[in-house]
């Protein structure tokens, strides 16, 4: 090989070394860049997930609060209705049920606590007492007449027995 040849080959070697060195750095750079970009994307993704979580949480919170508000409103309305119905019931008992009752205890008892069976017994007893009173008034003369008839029948029977052949 001559000098030229030697120069040529040594030059080529140098260029080859340099080129190689250049490619490794580039790859390293590109790799690092890629890693950085990947990390960036990952971070952005994490941030997005976090934001989504927060938004979902906020939405749930808002919904819960709204539900609580609605529940409170519904309860308030229901309580008001219940009170109104209970007041109406109490008035009905005082004005309509109590005049039918004889028992002061039942009259004094609250509408929601009083026993319907006891009230019915009380009313039935009162009506039956009135019936018995009316029956006594209306039939006492007839019952006396019946007793007189029975007394005479007994005496007639005694006379018959005393005079039987």
């Amino acid at each position, binding site marked *: 090989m001559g000098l030229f040849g030697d120069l040529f080959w040594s030059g080529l070697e140098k260029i080859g070394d340099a080129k190689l060195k250049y490619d490794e750095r580039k790859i390293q750079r590109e790799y690092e860049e890629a890693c950085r970009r990947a990390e960036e994307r990952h971070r952005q993704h994490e941030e997005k997930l976090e934001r989504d979580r927060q938004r979902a949480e906020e939405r749930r919170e808002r919904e819960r609060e709204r539900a609580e508000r609605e*529940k409170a409103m*519904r*309860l308030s309305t*229901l*309580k008001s*209705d*219940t*009170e109104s*119905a*209970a*007041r*109406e*019931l*109490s008035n*009905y*008992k005082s004005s*309509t*049920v109590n005049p*039918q009752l004889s028992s002061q205890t039942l009259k004094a008892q*609250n*509408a*929601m*606590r009083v026993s*319907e069976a006891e*009230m*019915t017994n009380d*009313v*039935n007893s009162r*009506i039956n007492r*009135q*019936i018995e009173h*009316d*029956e006594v008034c*209306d*039939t006492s003369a*007839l*019952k006396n*007449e*019946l007793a*007189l*008839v*029975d007394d*005479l*029948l007994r*005496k*007639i*029977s005694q*006379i*018959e027995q005393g*005079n*039987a*052949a």
Partner: protein
Amino acid sequence: MLSKKDVDALGMLAGPEVYQKWQGLIEKLSSGSKITVANTGLYNSGKSSLFNALLGREHFKVGAIPTTKTGDREILTDSIELLDTPGIDTPDSSDDAAAFDALMRSDIILMIHNVKTGMLNRAEYEWLKRIAEGMNRETIADRMIFVSTWTDEIQDKSDLEKLRSEIQRQVREAANGIEIRYAEVSAKRFKTGIENDKKALVDASGIPEFRNFVIDAAKKFSEKAESLRRQELLNLCRITRDRLNDKRRSVSDEIDGRKRRIRSRYDGAFETWRGILSRFTSMRGNVQSKLNECKSISYDSYFENRIYDM
């Protein structure tokens, strides 16, 4: 035996006829052994005249207008008492009731008919029928005598015979087929005979014979009286018991009817209460339902107690 108070009660409960029969029977039982012979018939039929003829003196008042208001009594013999009763079918209907009452208390009844008037008129026929129905059937023949008076006023014997036959038929029919003893007298002829001392007239009047007939009938009746009275008493007890049982049924039915009417009056009260209670139950159910709904949302014991205490 029944007291006066019991008999009065029977009048109210078993009817006036039962009352009269008991009155008569009690009177008979209390009068001892004396037999009461009573007359009956239309006023002015000669009832009192006949009794005066039997007595042989003018004791009972005689007149063309109703004279006897209440039963007049006079003793005929030691064991016989005559009872002159008011005439029937007079304008005063209380006379009939008084006469019937007196007859039912007597032992022997003389039904007097004036033959001058012909056959029995409707009032006499119905009266005889009523007496027969009021007596124990088995004693009618012993206790009743039918007497035709004023027979001397019928001159024609065949007319009298015919009339007698018709009257006897009527009497039998009114007495429901029972043969009643029959006699004919003329008190007027008797009186004339006595006043003029004409024995033939007295005998022809039939009065002496009839007097003996009555005394004999009374004697025979007296002999049978005790068993007849017992029989009469038992019969009266049976009638009274039937009437009282009828009364008992009707009073019991009336009591039951009144009780039913009273109870039906109160059906409305029970119905009203059922309506009130039904509304009360519904209203209370509504309150309880709302309260349960409240509790399902949020349990609030304070609220619940407040509702229960309203």
